[in-house]
């Protein structure tokens, strides 16, 4: 009897072991995907972009140091934005600004790029609709229907757009560009759609500055929303009422 019982117990233990082993294996296999999904809310390729999400950036100016341009370098590297040593016509998708208060002498350093406005003037003025805003708030230029009139560059209050003045060689597959059309920060849309964060934010994090935070402004549980709720965040030229997707702390 005892022998039978002990063998039953042994069988149970083996079954238990097998069960938990399988569960662990399954967990280990599925978890990264689930966790990744939860962390960055990657969009399946077949799913349309939705306005439930509004991507945005929060820049903490107290952590952004003068002289550091890691974000700019990262952007230039991943998008292959090589200059021709002609600063007046070379493109810039993101740049560092040094802002000095004339009365107090206080100096700030901050990155400036397309502010991914909720009411983008560049989209309003574009005659062909090449300049457009995705449902998730990312403002882009459709390089196939841009005629190169540059009206969007006249309309942008942030000087965020560049005209491609020269033939482009050796382009990045993820960021197609072309002579005679207008371009600007895409918020690394091809990375965001694959659940990754923009290159500038990644570079800022890797360098342990942590001055840039990317996330969903519509999700009250996202880190960016929590930080904005707690500490607030300002828009540059808020007086224009553009409802920018890029917000700044400490300006």
């Amino acid at each position: 009897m005892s022998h039978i019982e002990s063998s039953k117990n042994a069988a149970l233990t083996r079954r238990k072991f097998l069960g938990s082993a399988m569960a662990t294996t399954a967990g280990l296999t599925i978890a990264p995907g689930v966790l990744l999904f939860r962390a960055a809310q990657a969009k399946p390729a077949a799913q349309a972009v939705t306005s439930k999400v509004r991507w945005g950036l929060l820049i903490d100016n107290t952590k952004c140091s003068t002289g550091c341009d890691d974000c700019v370098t990262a952007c230039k590297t991943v998008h292959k934005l090589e200059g021709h040593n002609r600063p007046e016509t070379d493109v810039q998708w993101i740049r560092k600004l040094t802002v000095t208060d004339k009365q107090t002498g206080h100096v700030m350093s901050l990155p400036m790029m397309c502010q991914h406005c909720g009411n983008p003037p560049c989209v309003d003025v574009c005659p062909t609709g090449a300049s457009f805003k995705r449902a998730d708030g990312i403002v882009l230029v459709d390089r196939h229907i841009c005629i190169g009139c540059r009206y969007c560059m006249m309309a942008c209050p942030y000087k965020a757009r560049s005209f491609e003045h020269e033939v482009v060689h050796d382009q990045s597959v993820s960021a197609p560009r072309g002579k005679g059309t207008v371009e600007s920060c895409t918020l690394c849309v091809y990375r965001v759609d694959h659940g990754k964060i923009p290159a500038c934010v990644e570079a800022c994090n890797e360098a342990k500055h942590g001055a840039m935070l990317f996330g969903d402004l519509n999700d009250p549980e996202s880190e960016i929303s929590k930080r904005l709720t707690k500490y607030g965040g300002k828009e540059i030229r808020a007086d224009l009422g553009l409802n920018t997707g890029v917000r700044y702390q400490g300006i």
Partner: protein
Amino acid sequence: MKKANFVEIEGRSAGYLALLGFLGIFILAALGSSFYMEHNGHHVTGMTNQIVWGMPHVFAVFLIVAASGALNIASISSVFNKTAYKPLARLSGLLAISLLLGGLMVLVLDLGRPDRLIIAMTRYNFRSIFAWNMILYNGFFLIVGIYLWTMMQRSLNKYTHYAGFAAFIWRLTLTTGTGSIFGFLVARQAYDSAIMAPMFVIMSFSFGLAIFLLVLLAAYNWTHRPLGDVIFNTLKNLLGVFVAAVLYFVIVQHLTNIYMAKDSGVEAFILLNGGIYTKLFWIGQILLGSLVPLALLYHPTWGKSRTLVGVAAMLVIIGGMAQMYVIIIGGQAYPLSLFPGMEVQSSFFDGVVNHYAPSLSEIMLGLGGMATAMITVVLAIKILRFLPESLADEVVDPQHS
């Protein structure tokens, strides 16, 4: 009053062919310039990421504005029933279409991708005033074309009044649209004002009439057709009124901006310390383009000289170009205000006055647009009956004995 008799010009003289050749050289140079710019990319021009609209836009906007103004003479005859202007209505319509053609040619050939013109003609973003302008420009060709047809085919004459009225409303809308291209730009302090639209309308009256007067003088002098004092003096006085009206709008525009503390910087830039822009404003636009022409047009003896009135019209055109340069280039040269009241620096020329030097190719493209407008007129008056055989006083003036 005799009925105006419209006759084609002969157009076989050496002078006529030389004129065609002269204009043709400019058009070829413009096409060459455009090819050069498009082939190499716009870095070979003076335009940059700071000054995104340059000399081609100065020419193009000037020509487009002048186009709608050139239609004024026809409108006065058909809409307001002033019979004295009636013999001039056909030339007025022709000049309007020609100037618009020249202006659009410059605008299109400067695009980053002129090969995509078909996209601009088939895809419209109706929130864009630029898209509306494309519809207005195309409509202008159509409506003025129909208007000319009703004038030139006797059986359709009864519709001229209606076509003229439609064209009149259309041209006002068109110039309102052109002014609004700048008026709607919230980002730039030099524009961003509702006054741009009516100011552009009144500028069109002035520039269009100045060009009309010069074309009229040249056409009648070179073909030895009589041009009486009655019509000449009427046009001369009208030009004076328009020049004064533009001056009034310019004064109101700047006074309003000076009054607002936030715009005092950009006003000081244009009016006091903007270098080339300040010089072009005071010497080009105000002195040569407004005050001297007013003196010439209204002076009791100078105003009787056709040469001096011609000089006045030429000065109005030069002043108009200066005004366009100050508005378009000067407005971009002044830095954007990202942080009002603070000093901004970057590797992208933030916070500094932007530099611009027009390249030869841009200037040639612009002049080619003007030449295209003129060659269209020169060819059209040879092919069709646009010009009255005589504009002597007894043809024009109903009261003339």
